[in-house]
């Protein structure tokens, strides 16, 4: 039984063009037979990744230990069980020293065995970084031939959490691939929408100074305004496997949740400044399978005299959540929702009503409980 954390949001964008196709038009998709606005999965993920830097300390990642040589050596044995542990340890030591990590043997107490070398401070390595170094050392005949640069490259300058969540595919070396723990769907408008055109003229200052008429440049910018449904899910077990550290998993989920709410692709934002936040955010912890509520919007939402589109969309979302439970028996273990005041009543069916910071706090506690059952890398 795997644990999944589902993230849902309804976010209304003012006329803008945050994600455009080749032709400069806002991206669209047909759903339920009508054209909707779309923000691509990759644009949403890129925006979240950019925001991570603000929420995560580079050092708060992966397995945190001084005993990195041991960690790498043990991983080497997993790669090739025929290796001698002491040999592996020696090789790991050489490689890590090359990378600039100072390793010293802790002073053995009288009568005790000599302990293996360790770093003088806590080092942070993502599971995949440890694995890569271990694999590289196993496949290298003479560890002394590895350059400092080569080892550093293997240890990797990327965020461990970033790669653990969103994965990595490297065409040149498939061994560097990491399977993403997060799945982000394309955001789709909950209603039919068409792009709009803004015809603009740009004045040439010198032309005007010379009192010549006419614009310097004419053009059109396309824009679209929609209420988008956004969905993402994190496979917590996979995240644990990628990171190897319970604390890193908790931090990763927290960072993902915060950036899910606060980030947005930045296309054409200097022109449109559509910096809106989601009006409804719902998070659900599930132990069976991830569930997207996108089908709530297959029939496009249309505003009616009684309620505006945001309200109807929120109701449709809450109804879908309910019908999933009743029809399929998939009941979330925990569910919370954050909504702007005017939508709170309609959103209450999506979980316990909280502010987003409270929601992220509750989510953090829930994840801590889940990962308490997991074994850390090296345990």
């Amino acid at each position, binding site marked *: 039984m795997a644990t999944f954390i589902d993230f849902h949001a309804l976010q209304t964008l003012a006329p803008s063009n945050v994600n455009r196709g080749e032709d400069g038009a806002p991206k669209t998709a047909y759903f339920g037979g009508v054209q909707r606005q779309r923000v691509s999965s*990759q644009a949403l993920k890129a925006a979240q990744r950019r925001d991570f830097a603000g929420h995560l300390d580079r050092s708060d990642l992966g397995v945190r230990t001084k005993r990195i040589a041991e960690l790498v050596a043990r991983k080497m044995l997993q790669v090739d069980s025929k290796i001698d542990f002491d040999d592996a340890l020696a090789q790991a030591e050489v490689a890590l020293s090359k990378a600039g990590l100072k390793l010293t043997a802790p002073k053995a107490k009288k009568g005790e065995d000599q302990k293996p070398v360790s770093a003088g401070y806590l080092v942070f390595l993502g599971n995949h970084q440890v694995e890569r170094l271990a694999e590289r050392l196993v496949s290298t005949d003479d560890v002394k031939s590895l350059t400092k640069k080569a080892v550093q490259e293997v240890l990797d300058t990327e965020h461990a959490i970033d790669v653990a969540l969103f994965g990595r595919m490297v065409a040149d070396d498939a061994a560097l691939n990491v399977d993403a723990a997060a799945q982000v769907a394309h955001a789709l408008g909950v209603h039919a929408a068409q792009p709009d055109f803004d015809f603009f003229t740009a004045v040439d200052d010198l032309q005007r100074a010379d009192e010549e008429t006419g614009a310097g440049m004419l053009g059109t910018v396309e824009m679209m305004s929609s209420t988008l449904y956004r969905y993402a899910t994190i496979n917590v077990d996979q995240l644990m496997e990628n990171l190897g550290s319970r604390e890193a998993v908790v931090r990763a989920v927290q960072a993902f949740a915060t950036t899910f709410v606060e980030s947005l692709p930045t296309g054409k934002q200097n022109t449109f400044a559509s910096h809106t936040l989601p009006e409804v955010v719902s998070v659900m912890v599930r132990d069976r399978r991830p569930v997207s509520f996108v*089908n709530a919007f297959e029939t496009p939402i249309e505003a009616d005299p009684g309620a505006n589109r945001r309200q109807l969309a929120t109701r449709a979302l809450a109804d879908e959540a309910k019908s999933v439970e009743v029809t399929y028996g998939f009941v979330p273990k925990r569910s919370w929702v954050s909504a702007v005041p005017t939508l709170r009543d309609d959103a209450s069916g999506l979980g316990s009503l909280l502010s987003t910071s409270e929601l992220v706090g509750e989510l953090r506690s829930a994840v801590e409980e889940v990962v308490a059952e997991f074994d850390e890398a090296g345990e």
Partner: protein
Amino acid sequence: MSTLILRSKGPMQSWAVNSRYTTREAGREPSKSGVIGLVAAALGRNRGDAVDDLVDLRMGVRTDQPGRLLVDYHTAKVPGNKHSTLSWRHYLSDAAFTIALGGEDSVIQGIASAVQDPRFPLYLGRRSCPAPIDLFGGVSVESDVEVVLRDLEITPWLASEWHRKQIGKIAYLPLSRDARPGENGELVRDVPQSFDPRNRIYDSRSVARLEPIVVENADGVEESDPFFDLVKEG
């Protein structure tokens, strides 16, 4: 022997067998490799694990709603490169397929449970296309995938109301399945030998395209052709 039924329906999906380099295609129907991949993911197999037991499953696909092509322009900025990497990824919007997988009872039961409690999140061809809530369409004791797909009581038509209202009173649903020995078929290279990213290999199979299933569509548009009626009158 029994048959697992899966419903591949969602706003976007993409199953391809011929993609090369920067144009990532979407085929007109789910591929065997894609479906085996989905089943393997549900079962918790990693990419490097063996899938030969799953490859033996017999597959049939019925196109309930053909969908329309969506081409997504995808840019990726690799740190250190001056220009972004570009690719064009094709998807099918608004498509719906009923997939039938036939095999040994114990294997099918195992997959049926896994699909309802998957080890990895499931998707329809691409990770950005989450599998729908009603992906699992049940298990039928009927062992022939063609019989299962032709019988709308076992596998109801998945088309949405808006689609049914747009097409005629009679709908024709394309049907394909693994060709039987001696049957004519189209050669498709979508039988996974290995999903290991270091060494992905696919074998071929022969796919038979069968007579479409004829469905009565009460919601359909009355087809009227004024010129034909005039001619008939005359």
